[in-house]
């Protein structure tokens, strides 16, 4: 599975306006919902907040991967956002979070695709070069190229 195949371009936010955890989740949920009509933004927000309550999806090194399942979706979809100054996302290493990948999967898709996509995004983000490219990208193309490059590796 390639992340480029599930990434919704209109749900890539180069620089978020929000400075809080809920704010950035909300902004990403709305962006994804306006690009994918079958997503109801408030419902998505609920699912994401519920998942964060279980344990923060801030995996450290400035990255968070909020995710959740929704009914009525045709396939996996992903969004991206960046907060250059970093914000407090209750990340496991306690550091501010700068890069956000949002992953939404159909409720009845079975767990495997969901897990494989999560694992793949985590794997990408454990690569410091990749994080650097995302941080330094000056436009949408920069973000997409970085992800496509990583997708090509394995």
């Amino acid at each position, binding site marked *: 599975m390639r992340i480029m195949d599930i990434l919704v371009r209109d749900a890539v936010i180069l620089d978020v306006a929000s400075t809080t955890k809920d704010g950035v989740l909300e902004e990403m949920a709305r962006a994804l919902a306006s690009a994918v009509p079958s997503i109801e933004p408030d419902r998505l927000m609920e699912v994401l907040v519920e998942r964060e309550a*279980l344990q923060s999806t801030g995996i450290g090194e400035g990255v968070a991967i909020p995710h959740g399942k929704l009914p009525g979706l045709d396939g996996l979809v992903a969004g991206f956002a960046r907060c250059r100054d970093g914000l407090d996302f209750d990340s496991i290493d306690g550091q501010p979070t700068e890069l956000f990948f949002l992953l939404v999967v159909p409720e009845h898709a079975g767990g495997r695709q969901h897990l494989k996509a999560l694992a793949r995004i985590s794997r990408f983000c454990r690569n410091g070069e990749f994080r650097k490219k995302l941080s330094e990208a000056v436009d949408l193309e920069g973000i997409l190229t970085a992800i496509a490059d990583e997708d090509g590796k394995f």
Partner: protein
Amino acid sequence: MERNEVLIVGGGLVGQTLANRLSRDGYDVTLVEKNPDRVREVGETLDIHIFEGNGATAPVLRNAGIENVGLVVAATESDASNVVVGFLASHVFNTPRVVVRVHDAGHEEGFTKACQDRPVEGVCVNPDTASVERIASLLEVPGAVDVMRFVEGNVFVAGFRISEASDFAGLQVSDMKLLFASTPTLAVAIQRGTDWIVPGGTEQIHAGDLVYFAIARHELADVLALVGAPPERQGRIMVAGATSIGLALAKRLEERDERVVMIEEDSAAAQAAASQLDHVLVIEGRPTDQSLLEDEEIEQVSAFVALTDDHESNLVSGLLARRLGAGRSIVLVDNPAMVSMVGDIGIDAIISPRLLTISETIQHIRGGGVRSGAALLGEEVEIIEVDAAKDCRLTSAPLMDVGLPRGVLIAALQRGDKLLLPKGGDQVIAGDRLLIVSMNQLSSKLNEFLEP
């Protein structure tokens, strides 16, 4: 343990390894061995008391100091001698704990029953039973090199070689908490080259690592998908060797309605096997015979299990079967040098009765607190399942404040019917069932946390 002295009878591989382990853990170990050459050999390599003599006799045991020890382990190569040692210890010298290695189920029954009415704890460790158990677990988990079950079968600990294509390659251990939030599915030990690690959250998993995962039973298929394990192949299981382990495994598989073919070189043994097994096809022939394997459609076989008494031949037939298309090769090997090289040469999994015996013995040595199990990974990492004792140090504060050393990991906690991965803020309470993974050299330190 109140009495820290241990007497081990039998200085073979099992006795030596145990003696080494226990003396490293701070026990005062005496080894009794009758073969003078071996006494010399052990004396040169291990820093323990060695007593030359036949341990199956009362005077020798007395002179070796049995009256002062808290534990006797009978680990000679002879079942009969071990049972005699066991009887002397439990019935003549009233040793509080006695562990006896026996292969024969009849000896096992006799000794266990004889100890029932005694004020001592007498247990048998049967390498054959332990081996069959391990093989049966392995056959349930495709792609694993090693599989153990804990917490009443609710948690598997399974080792997988991680390839570049695996979804785990490049992940940090803590990323598994993203994938499996709040369930005890986590990487608990990593072998990288010859080094073993009980990883912290920031440890990265690399391609080529052998990673042991604790896996909540209902998440086994998820982990297999992420590992990239080959899909389970339907097909016959081929067992080479009508040895006691081979026969016991065939019977076990027969009960599970598996289709089994057995290959045995010795004509009489093959006939005896055929008469004991109802649904197993027994073929007389050499497991290392390529044309025989081809005739038996080895390429359709889901798993080839080599269990003859000739361990080098097991390696050869295992490699051959794999090359000819068998889904998986599981091979019985007991020589430590061979055990360590197996991963590099294309055998999928090995069974070492010696290591299994040592694991089980240690489990009994750990005493009443340890429940269903203890296991050793490559003699470096220990996994124990234990009920938290009342007023032990582990229950004194939330986990993050208890001060467990690095290299000790609480991999799972079962409280009532709830199974979870404990977090730093959680506090263990008496009666919790815990699965603990630790580096071997920390086991005596770990004891300080577990003892009341």
